[in-house]
Every structure is written in structure tokens, then in C-alpha cells.
């Protein structure tokens, strides 16, 4: 009890310092479930609330985080020809991945939450938990070497224009994490597409690639590792392996079809995720585990996921039939090994705020995402990935889909009213004719 009383004493005044009050309130309700009781309406409430919902999603992402962090380091060292086995140099790869990931995570969350706190303070309501999930998703869809200022700008763009301008949590039309990525995609395209950005710590001089020099932070860890007798980072600047290509499987497929992909990466490698790519999108199994967790917790809609798979299959089949380029001839099953399909399916498309909100609408919405995404991936000359654009596109259409589902409901009700009044009229008719006489 003493702790709570102390916390109440230091509570900033709501009117005099609204920003501090909102900040305080946000952290207080994080630590303590509030003691408000029901006033009108039901007297008991379900134990589930938005904080818990968001938190379960963040937990479902943790496997991707663990793997993604490690994979940043693994790809870096494999490109340099060192520690080529997956578990070799475990400590180095983990530390390297964390040093790359943590600044991204911190910057994305601080900028996003900071903006949300300012807006909540201005509007006078407690901060709403929408950004917990977006803040956890954004680092996973970025390339590991992204400059932090670009990340900060994109998060600010997404939160201010994509969310707060529409009214905050629950009111946004487009997926926030994807908006931040699409901002970088259009404003700073060289930082987020192409073959140079997906493996961390490789720099290009002329036409030669070299490992980047290791900064001071790595030096600190070197002293620890050296003391323990483990391998160290060293100074950096090594040459990359022969035949180095920073291309992701999709980049290879866009150039030369499936044979070009299997030359460099095996399907098993692509499945387990030991390939270059955005931080979190590569480990397919962990993403699927996360998706099953969300379905089991009844937080993500299985309808959207299933219909998206079906849409992608149908789209893939259509494209296979056409088969004009080597990329189009990649069998539709192989498309699931490459790129961020599963990540988009499990965490982006199922965002409840921006997806269709009726059950029928979800089937249509997911199916169209799968179809459009496959088309964009294969037929897009500039950029061989389609899910981000497809999901944002269908986000705009989701209210329209819902509108027509609701219209069907309204029409059903009107039709029922008409038959009912027709029956009533028929029953009333004999009396009318009798009275007329």
C-alpha cells in the first residue's frame, strides 16, 4: 500500500502539466491495473483489455526478434567467409545483431511513443496502447543498417499523418508499421531496396565489397571476449567471399527465376531463415508459430490468414499460366519460400483496426491481398516484393468491402420486412372486403 500512496503523491497535476501527467499515467497503468469499478451497464467486465491483447502480440513476435537479431550477425559473417556454420561464433553474431537492432528498436519506440504521449496530453485522454504493437513491428521490417534519422522520420510520418491525424488508436485507415516502411521506400529508396542493404556491415568501394570497420562499441566486447578466450571481432575491413551477392532470394528470382535462387540458397535455408532480408521476416517457422499463437488466443483472424494464402495460390497459379518471364515461371509453391509473405500474413494483414471488420469481409479482404500482392511481386519491374503495397492498398478498400457486406444485411432485413408486411396484408384483406360491402 505504501508504494501506491507514494505514487499518488508524486502524480503530476493534470491541468498544470498535461504532458507529464500523461507520461505518469501511462507508466502507472502499465504497472498497476486501475481500480475503477463499473458504473453503468454491465457490473462485471471481461478480464481481457487492450493492453493484454497488444502484449500477447508482442510476445508472439519474440521468436522473430531472437532469430532476426542472431541472423543479422550470421549473414554478416557468412558474407565475410567467417564462422560459416550457423552456430559458429554464437557470441559474436548475437552481440553484433543486438548492437544493430537495439538502436533501431529504441529509436522507433521512443519517437513513436513520444509523439503519442504529446498528442494524448494535448487531447486530455490517457495514452492508448496502439503503438505497442506497431513499435514492435517496425524494427522487424527494416534493413539492419538503416540510418537512425531516416527511421525516426518515417516513424514520425506514420504516427502523425497515419494515425493521430485520423483520431488516434482505432481510427487509422492504414497499417502504421507499413506506412513507416513505405515512407522510406518512396523517399529514400536506396536505403531499403536493392542488393546492398540486406546484409549488415558490408560497404562498397568502387565495385569491390569489404566488411565495414568495427567501431568502438565492438572493441569493448572484444576485450571481454578476448579475456574469456573466445574469438573476437578484430579490426574489420576484410574482403568478402568470392561470388558474394547481397541479393535476397527474391532479388535473384526476379533476375533469373527459380534456378538462379537455388544456385545460392537451398529451400531448407530459405525456410529456416538463414538468408538476407529484413530483420524479422525470414524465419518462416517462427512466424507460423507466432501466427498459431495469435489464432489460438483469438486475437488474429484465421480467416484473413487462410484467405490470403488462397489468394496468393490463385494469383501464383494465374501467373504460372502466363509464364512470360523466368520470374513468372517460378512455381507458386516456391513463392512461399521467398520474401515476407508469412510475416505480412501473420502480423500485418491481420491488424484488426485496418482490416475488414465483418467475417465475410475478411475472406474477401485477405483473398484480394494475396492476389494483388502476388501480382505486384511478380509483375513489378522495379521492386520484387509486393505485400507492403498490397496490404496498404486493401486497407483503403476494407471499409468499402464492409459497406457492401452491411448493405447485404440491410437488404436482407428489408426483404424480410416486405414479405412480412405482404403476409400481414393478405391476412387483413378478407376484413377489408367485408367492410367495403
Amino acid at each position, binding site marked *: 500500500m505504501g508504494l501506491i500512496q507514494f505514487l499518488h503523491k508524486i502524480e503530476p497535476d493534470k491541468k498544470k502539466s498535461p504532458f507529464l501527467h500523461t507520461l505518469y499515467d501511462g507508466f502507472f497503468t502499465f504497472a498497476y491495473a486501475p481500480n475503477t469499478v463499473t458504473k453503468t451497464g454491465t457490473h462485471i*467486465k*471481461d478480464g*481481457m483489455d487492450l493492453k493484454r491483447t497488444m502484449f500477447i502480440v508482442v510476445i508472439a513476435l519474440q521468436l522473430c526478434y531472437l532469430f532476426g537479431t542472431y541472423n543479422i550477425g550470421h549473414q554478416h559473417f557468412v558474407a565475410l567467409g567467417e564462422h560459416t556454420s550457423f552456430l559458429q561464433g554464437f557470441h559474436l553474431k548475437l552481440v553484433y545483431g543486438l548492437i544493430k537492432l537495439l538502436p533501431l528498436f529504441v529509436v522507433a519506440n521512443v519517437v513513436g511513443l513520444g509523439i503519442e504521449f504529446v498528442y494524448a496530453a494535448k487531447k486530455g485522454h490517457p495514452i492508448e496502447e496502439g503503438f505497442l504493437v506497431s513499435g514492435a513491428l517496425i524494427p522487424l521490417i527494416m534493413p539492419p543498417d538503416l540510418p537512425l534519422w531516416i527511421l525516426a522520420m518515417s516513424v514520425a510520418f506514420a504516427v502523425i499523418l497515419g494515425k493521430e491525424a485520423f483520431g488516434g488508436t482505432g481510427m487509422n485507415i492504414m497499417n502504421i508499421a507499413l506506412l513507416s516502411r513505405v515512407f522510406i521506400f518512396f523517399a529514400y529508396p536506396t536505403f531499403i531496396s536493392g542488393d546492398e542493404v540486406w546484409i549488415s556491415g558490408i560497404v562498397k568501394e568502387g565495385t569491390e565489397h569489404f566488411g565495414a570497420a568495427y567501431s568502438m562499441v565492438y572493441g569493448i566486447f572484444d576485450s571481454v571476449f578476448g579475456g574469456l578466450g573466445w574469438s573476437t571481432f578484430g579490426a574489420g575491413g576484410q574482403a568478402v567471399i568470392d561470388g558474394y551477392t547481397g541479393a535476397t532470394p527474391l532479388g535473384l528470382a526476379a533476375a533469373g527465376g527459380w534456378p538462379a535462387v537455388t544456385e545460392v540458397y537451398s529451400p531448407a535455408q530459405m525456410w529456416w531463415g538463414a538468408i538476407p532480408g529484413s530483420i524479422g521476416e525470414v524465419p518462416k517457422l517462427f512466424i507460423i508459430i507466432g501466427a498459431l499463437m495469435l489464432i489460438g488466443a483469438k486475437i488474429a483472424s484465421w480467416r484473413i490468414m487462410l484467405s490470403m494464402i488462397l489468394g496468393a495460390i490463385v494469383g501464383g497459379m494465374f501467373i504460372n499460366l502466363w509464364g512470360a518471364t523466368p520470374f513468372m515461371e517460378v512455381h507458386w509453391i516456391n513463392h512461399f519460400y521467398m520474401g515476407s509473405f508469412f510475416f505480412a500474413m501473420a502480423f500485418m494483414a491481420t491488424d484488426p483496426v485496418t482490416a475488414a471488420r465483418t467475417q465475410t469481409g475478411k475472406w474477401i479482404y485477405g483473398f484480394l491481398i494475396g492476389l494483388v500482392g502476388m501480382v505486384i511481386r511478380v509483375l513489378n519491374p522495379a521492386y520484387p516484393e509486393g505485400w507492403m503495397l498490397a496490404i496498404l492498398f486493401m486497407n483503403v478498400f476494407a471499409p468499402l468491402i464492409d459497406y457492401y457486406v452491411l448493405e447485404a444485411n440491410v437488404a436482407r432485413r428489408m426483404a424480410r420486412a416486405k414479405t412480412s408486411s405482404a403476409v400481414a396484408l393478405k391476412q387483413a384483406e378478407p376484413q377489408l372486403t367485408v367492410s367495403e360491402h
Partner: protein
Amino acid sequence: MFFKKPLKSFVLRDKIANIAAVLPLIFLSSHLSAQPVFLASSAADMLPYTLILIVAFLILGAVYLISESFVRMEARDLGVDTKKNNFSILPNSEEVFGSSKSDGASTSGHKVIHLKKGFDIKLEGAAEYKVDENAAVTRFAMQPKNFIGMSPIPKVEVEVGDEVQAGDVLFFDKKNPDVKYCAPVSGEVIAVNRGEKRSIAELVILADKEMKYRAMPVFDLENASKEELVSYMKDNGAWAHIRQRPYNVVADSNETPKAIFVSTFDTAPMAPDLDIIIAGRGNEFQVGLDILNMLTPGKVHLGLNAKDEDPSPVFENATGVEKHWISGPHPAGNVGVQIHHIDPINAGERVWTVGVQDVATIGSLFLEGIYDAERVVAITGAELKEPQYVTTYLGANIGDLVANNLKNDHVRMISGDVLSGKAKKAEQFLDFFDDQVSVIEEGDEYEMFGWLAPQSARPSLSPTFLSNLVDTSYVANTNTHGERRALVVSDQYEQVLPMDIYPQHLVKSILVNDLERMEGLGIYELVEEDVALCEFVCTSKQPVQDILREGLTTMMDQE
């Protein structure tokens, strides 16, 4: 023109399902033949052939749709029911997979309406199967606020200190002076309490030990006309027991209801078993049903519990009514849900609903010639030492009902069930239409990381609470378990409302005051108790019942 009719009909979904079933076969076959293993030419040659195939398929599909429309038109001209019968070559989804809605397996010879959506909240503290005949309740009250639409200051006919008999007129609404509201017990009027803005909150009567009933004028049921019956009921307090939907107001005798509905089971948390409550009043109940039959040109529908292993003969053997067996989780017992599945309310229509004990009261008026407001009330809740049933009268004092039965003082006493009842203090009274008192713990304490790792089990729809894996009853408290947020999660309300309504979109249309949308999405079919479960499961803690009442008031004002 004939293209428009089938497109608007609901059956289009089945047709698309049929066509969609054939689609993968076509694509698979074309794709298999496009394997580079078999053909030397590249897959690009397949494109014109595939296009021809698709066009041929579309033509076939068009022929199929047109021919089916012609058959339908013919059937309509001949008078055959086009909705129930399938006139196409291919089977529709219902014939292949079976219907998901009603008309499922029948038990013991009658058809059962199986409802899948909903959620049973198992709470500790359900009433034990014993009835206390000697409850020491001395004060009873009539509360004008129990009647929706009543003016806040009705015309009160008695004064403090008057002696009244059971059935004497207490007050009436100046807007509707024919309907009289009568005293449930005999005794002395000890208080006329006022609420805000001088509205009448309650008229309190201190009851006699022996009830004295006002002798009702003789009424000739055989030869009376419907108007005489209606005015007799209105004069003697029986009319107030009939409610009208939409809006759940007191029935308007100028309107003709298309049917009257009585639900004989209650599925709310800790709700009383109406079989026990009606025991001993079977004759009154039957007479009440007969009276109700005279009030409507349509039918009187009785909703019975298909899952009841030991049904009461009063309900099972009721005559003159159409019986429907319903099974499902809460809110299957709500009369609104039953109306939706038996004979839904459309715009402009009226139905009347009467509670089980209210039917018995109406029956007593004609069977015994007195206004008999006896009630069997279930006192329930985990905070009671002995939850049980008590025999008392309408409008009993809450404090008297739970006297000597509370485990502690820090409780919330509710007239009605925990989902749609009203909080009461000990000096307040049971509401007119309620037959249950729920007593639960107040949950006004902070819980560290309560949302992440709750310290006590709490009822929830979500599988993330591990206590849901085990079939337990919960001790619920009044904590909101979260703060009010914008609507984020979708599909939650739909999971617990077994009606063809989109409740989340209805709520949104009420919030933006879109009257046409509200009507189109079915606001007439709902009353607070139907969406109470939606409010319970809402992750964003929205006050759905209040929002619905706002919408209903808006629609009421339009008429």
C-alpha cells in the same frame, strides 16, 4: 432485368460457392499441363488456350445463371416458394453441408433451435434449490423509472400515511392516463421519495402481515369484447406487466402486436430456475396465457429450454401457445433472441413480451379476482452466505431481502443479473420486472501488473486466461479490468450475439447518429439485455448498453 433479381438475392452466395468449387479443378489441370517437362514449347503458349478456356467457362456460367433465373421466374409465377427450394443443377451449400442455423437435430420429437454463438458466464453463488417462505421483508416500493417512457413526474393518487390494499391505484402517467400502476401489497404508504428534478423515485409501502386485496369488479370473460378486456386490465394494474418491442416500453393498446412472446428460461449468470419459480402457480400461468391469446391476432410463442432435463409441466403442457425449444449458451434465454429466430421484428411492427411471473399475475386477476403480485426471487452471489430463493412480493426492499446473509460490507447489490441489472443500495428496492438479486464484490483495488498476470481467476471470453481451460466457476468483482478505449478488435461482439445483426457497426452508427443505418442494421430488434454480453466481452470497455439505449431513444423520438 432478370439479371438483377438473382444478384440481389442471398442465394448468390451458394451459386458462387458452386462455381468456386469447379474453379480450382480447371486451374490445376491447366497448370499441370504447363509443366515444362511435358511440352517442349514454353509456358507462354498456354496463354491463348487458357484465355479460351476461361471465356468458355464464363459462357457456361452465364448460361447456367440465366437458365436458373428462368426457372425461378416460372416457379414464382406458379406460386412455389423460391427461397426454400433449390432450382439449380448443382446442390447448394445447405444440401451439401447441412444448415448451420436452426432446424437441427430434434430431441424427443420436437424441433430445436440450436444457437451456437454466445457465452455462458459461470459465476459462483447460484441459488440453492430451496425456497424460503418466510422472508422477513416488510417494505415494498413501486418505482416509476422502471417503465421506459414514463414521464418523470407521474400523477400520484395516494399520499403518505394512506392505507392501501393490494391492487389500489398508486399512480399513472399523464401522457397515458388509462394505464394504472397498482400497489403490490397492502399496508401504509410510508414515503414518496423524489429523485433529481423532483421526479418520483419510489413509492414505499410498509406491508401488513396479512395481505388485504382490493375486490376487483366482476368481469365476464366469455362475453367481453377485446376493448373491454383491455380497459379492465389497464384499470386493475395488469396492463403494466406487458412490455412492447421495439424500445421495451409499456405496451400501447392502440397498436396491434403481431405476436406475444414469453421466455420460460433465463440463461443470465446465476439466473433463477423458472421451473422452481412457477411451481404451484400453474393454473394462473395458463389463464394468463389464455388472456394474452385474446390480446393479439397472432400467436403467443413460448420459448422453452431444450437443455432442461427436468422441465416443469406448467411449461411443457401449456395449451393455446406455440412452443419452441431453444438450446444454446447465454443469451439463448433472452426473449429478444428468441423473437429473432421465431418471428423477427421488422420496421413498423410491434411485438409484446411478458415475463413468466408477470403472466401468473395477469392470470390471478382473472382466476382469483385479485391483484396478486407475489414473486419468488432468487438471492444470488458469491458474497452471500446462503444463496437461495425467497417468496415475497414485487418491489421488495433489497436490504430486507439480503438481511443477515452478507459475508462482508464491501459489496455491490444488484437488482437483476450482473449483466443488465441496476446497482442498488440497501434502502432501495427490487425493480418491477426483476426476479433476482445479485451480490458481488466491489473490485476497487489496484492490482500490480493485473493485466499481465492476474492474481485471481476472472471470467473471460479469451483463451489467454489459463483458467478458461478448466471448467470452473468464478468469483467476479466489479473492476473494469482496463480503461475505455476506441474500438480496435473486431468480431468480438458478433461471437456473443446469436442474431443476424452486426453489433459493432450498429454501435458505430448510433455514435454518429446515422438514423437510416441504425434502422437498416436492426436496432428495432435489440434491447439492452441482448447486447449486455457484447458489453461484457468488449476489450475496449465501451458502454454498449448505454449507447444502444441512446440509439433507441433517438428512434423513439422520431416516431
